[in-house]
């Protein structure tokens, strides 16, 4: 079934992705050099579309390396590892890992982590809203059950860890800044999420990061807190009020609201 069509599509893909028009050349009109030039229109369009998708998802990397550098790196990545989805907004998951091993980027060891932060922000724009935290229900959790509270995060939430000051770099390369980071040292752990339509990225202190990651791993509040010598309630209040936390569950059932019941 469709053997001839399959062979033709495979040859065509080799021409547009690999720049190898040999196999398809005998099947197309116009023939000769003109046909090869016409095929090249497809090659350029494929590259432009895939690079354009990566460009849109990695605005800070683009600004750091410039258009020509980005185009070269992104087109190499796209040709080697084309998208698995026809939704090009989902294309780019592996670009940070590619940059990590991209020889020309060896002098910018932070670049791959900046790409990870760009990608986390891009994904946050597409995530679902999820259910907001039910503050009333939370207030009714009896004290003896609080240590075992387990929180879920809103779907847009992610954490990016780096040994480089990626948040300072990322902030300095937003459109209203001149590119000069406020600091050039630090190991940033960045919490990314979407709050009322806008993507937010903030640095977490080591203790906050450990707490968030413990909650994300499904640990209860008490276990996630660790040493109780920090202002957990204030941090938890921030996570809750900025739309980071979603539903919670507890081992002990929470009674109905005295008003609505």
């Amino acid at each position, binding site marked *: 079934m469709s053997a001839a069509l399959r062979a033709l599509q495979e040859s*065509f893909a080799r021409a547009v992705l690999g720049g190898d028009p040999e196999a398809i050349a005998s099947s197309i009109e116009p023939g000769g050099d003109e046909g090869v030039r016409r095929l090249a229109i497809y090659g350029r369009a494929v590259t432009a579309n895939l690079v354009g998708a990566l460009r849109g998802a990695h605005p800070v990397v683009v600004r750091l390396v410039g258009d020509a550098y980005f185009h070269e790196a992104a087109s190499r990545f796209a040709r080697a590892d084309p998208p698995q989805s*026809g939704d090009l907004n989902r294309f780019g998951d592996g670009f940070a890992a590619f940059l990590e091993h991209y020889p020309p980027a060896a002098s910018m060891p932070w670049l791959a982590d900046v790409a990870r932060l760009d990608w986390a922000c891009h994904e946050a724009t597409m995530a679902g809203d999820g259910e907001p935290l039910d503050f009333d229900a939370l207030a009714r959790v009896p004290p003896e059950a609080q240590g075992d509270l387990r929180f879920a995060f809103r779907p*847009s939430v992610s954490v990016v860890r780096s040994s480089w000051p990626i948040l300072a770099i990322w902030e300095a390369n937003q459109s209203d800044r001149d590119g000069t980071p406020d600091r050039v040292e630090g190991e940033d752990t960045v919490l990314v999420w979407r709050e009322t339509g806008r993507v937010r990225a903030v640095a977490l202190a080591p203790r906050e990061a450990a707490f968030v990651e413990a909650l994300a791993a499904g640990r209860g509040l008490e276990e996630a807190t660790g040493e109780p010598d920090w202002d957990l309630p204030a941090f938890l209040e921030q996570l809750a009020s900025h739309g980071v936390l979603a539903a919670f569950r507890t081992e002990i059932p929470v009674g109905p609201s005295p008003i609505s019941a």
Partner: protein
Amino acid sequence: MGAARFPLRAPDPRQAGIGLRTPHFAALAGSRPAVSFLEVHSENYFADGGPALAWLERFRADYAVSLHGVALSLGSVDGLDPVHLDRLARLVSRIEPALVSEHLCWSRLGGRNLGELLPLPYSEESLGVVCARVDEAQERLGRRILVENVSAYVRFRESTIPEGEFVAQVARRTGCGVLLDVNNAYVNAENHGTDARAFLAAIEPASVGEIHLAGPERTGDGLVDSHGARVLPDVWALYEETIARLGPVPTLVEWDTNIPPLEVLVAEADKATAVLRRAGDRARGAA
């Protein structure tokens, strides 16, 4: 089927619509131009949530919407990507569009998508593949789709069926409609030395659910369908002839590169509206 979330809206065939692109969101929300419908690329709204989808839902409250897919890949030997089709189905039930369309081309092979509208040979083999995919899509979406003729820069020696006949056969065999792109018909005729009028004449009038207009780019290697300029005078002439034959059909002006201010796009759509109105007046005069 759940309860409808939006008012039922259909494009007015006597007024053209515009392709909705991100740079125009704010201007469109502010000026609310008189266009008959908004068309978006379906894939740009496949997200689970977020600002783009929120904008589209806001516009859907006031306008008829057409979902125009670029990557379902109806011509792939590999078959449809079930995840892609599911996301499209979810968007269709979320937006309640007046029209849903895809392209007569392929982009998917071996689990990868090349992100471009690649041409098919027009053969019995391709016809079988495309019709099976159109059947599957219409079944999954629970509605009729429109399929669009694409611009092509090469032709295949394997082609045994004229393009117009191929498109007409897909519609006849599957019951789908045709999204007739008059600019693509012109581009192909210029690039391959074929006859755009013969192509257009092969399409059954009753099958045409929508018409596309756009401006191509002239290069040393022929016309490239860049959607980056005004509609060419020759294409306006073909469009007038087509509307004279079909009567008023929902018409869309697309502009995807070198995107101009919204008012320039709306002015281009207004030219199509003038053609549609003249045809409508003639039809009423004849009745």
